[in-house]
């Protein structure tokens, strides 16, 4: 072999050796074990510490709450959805406390009215509903229930319930005059509440022969405003006599 070929061969050999040496140190050991990546990285990600304990842990200590919640409307709502991550609390309950949402913001994430929410999902207009009261001062979040009667209607129609309370009809329940109450609450757009369609309806209390208390104002329905239904002139939520 000529000397120059030997020198070249030596040079190539040296370059190959350097390459192998560099590769040995540069490429991580576990690279390529499963594919074109560092196999050890899977363990690094898998080894991170969780912060949410999961839905099964809370009941180990808070059995009473979990039992109540299980049969309520909030059965599918995990504890940590409202109380935040709780793994550290479950491991060290005395030092690491869990958050208890206060005020009106957190409930509103689910229950403030938004047209995009599914019809029938319980929603309120925060501007109309419950003043500045914290949600939990009326509703038990572990066993939530809608209000009843006027309270139920006031969740969405609080201007009306406020007006009603200051007028002469304040002792009348909304359902005295409006029907289809419960269906309207679950499907407000498709099931509209009734409004009285006849003069005889108001006449049950206000006609001359009615059996209502004497203090209730009477009219002779044969001569009085015969072309109209009563509430078209007398605003029934704040009734007043015409002049």
């Amino acid at each position, binding site marked *: 072999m000529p000397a120059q070929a030997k020198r070249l061969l030596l040079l190539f050999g040296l370059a190959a050796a350097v390459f192998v040496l560099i590769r040995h140190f540069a490429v*991580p050991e576990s*690279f390529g074990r*499963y*594919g*074109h*990546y*560092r196999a050890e*990285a*899977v363990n*690094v*990600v*898998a*080894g*991170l*510490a*969780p*912060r*949410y304990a*999961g*839905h099964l842990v809370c009941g180990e200590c808070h059995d009473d709450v979990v039992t109540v919640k299980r049969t309520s409307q*909030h059965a*599918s*709502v*995990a504890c*940590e*959805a409202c109380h*935040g*991550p709780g793994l550290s609390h479950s491991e060290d309950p005395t030092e690491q406390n869990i958050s208890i949402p206060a005020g009106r913001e957190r409930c*509103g*994430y*689910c229950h*403030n*009215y*938004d*047209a*995009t*929410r*599914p019809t029938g*999902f319980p929603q309120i207009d925060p501007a109309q509903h419950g003043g500045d009261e914290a949600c939990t001062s009326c509703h038990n979040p572990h066993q939530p229930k809608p209000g009843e009667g006027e309270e139920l209607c006031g969740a969405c129609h609080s201007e009306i319930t406020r007006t009603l309370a200051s007028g002469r009809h304040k002792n009348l329940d909304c359902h005295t005059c409006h029907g289809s109450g419960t269906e309207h609450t679950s499907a407000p757009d498709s099931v509209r509440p009734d409004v009285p369609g006849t003069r005889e309806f108001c006449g049950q209390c206000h006609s001359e022969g009615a059996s209502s208390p004497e203090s209730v104002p009477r009219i002779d329905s044969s001569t009085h405003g015969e072309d109209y239904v009563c509430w078209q002139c007398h605003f029934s939520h704040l009734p007043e006599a015409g002049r």
Partner: protein
Amino acid sequence: MKEDHPLSVRSGPSTTNGDSPTAGNDRVTTRRDFLKCLIGFVPVVGLPILGLNLGALAATEKGREYDPAEHWYGMGIDVGLCIGCGRCVEACKEENNVPRDPYFFRTWVERYIKTPDGKMIVDSPNGGMNAFPPAGVSEQEILRTFYLPKLCNHCEKPPCVQVCPVGATFNTKDGVVLVDESYCIGCRYCIQACPYGARYLHPEKRVADKCTFCYHRITKGLRPACVEVCPTSARIFGETRRASTPLWRFVRTHEIHVLKPHLRTSPKVYYSDLDSEVR
């Protein structure tokens, strides 16, 4: 030992009764021999079997070692159930230390409003983490509206993995696309390649970051944080290759769509009843 092995007694020709051998047999097994064999057989063969069983029992009690080859994960999203409360977004940020700035998300929720003139209005203020303010569209102008949670689709054929120049992102054996933080050079190729916008550059670590299906949770038998806190069970996590899982029942019983199927990335996040505008 081999000669005395009881199995050879059973398989030997015409040894129906141990004490009444048939004529013509050169080997005679008496009841005494048989019992002697049995005494030897029980400790030699029985104990190791018992030992093995106990060992297996102990192993199942401890919780078996996690084997990624046994899993192939996916997620179902029941679009009709999502109420846009954004708890998943918050839980994801809490669980995975995702920066709180309003443009870094591993998962986020979009609101779609379709108007009668065919226009689609899409918004996602702060990823939906503080729920959604009123839409600014009167209800008479809404033809259809829904929320859409989004996250990494953990594609079977992920473009992000294909373009990574250093092998810092990859598909695990259980079907999760992960990022190797210590190997990523922060070149952002994968962020560009992802057709779903599911990746971002972590502002402090300067590496690509994305949803891991909460890999650190699912390998411990927990559910991903977003699934854990979803109040309406709109997110369903589980196995895609087993018939009897909640996820697969959801896929069987709903009309399922995936995002951008024409890109042939084989995404593993399954949406029910998706509007054609979104696909």
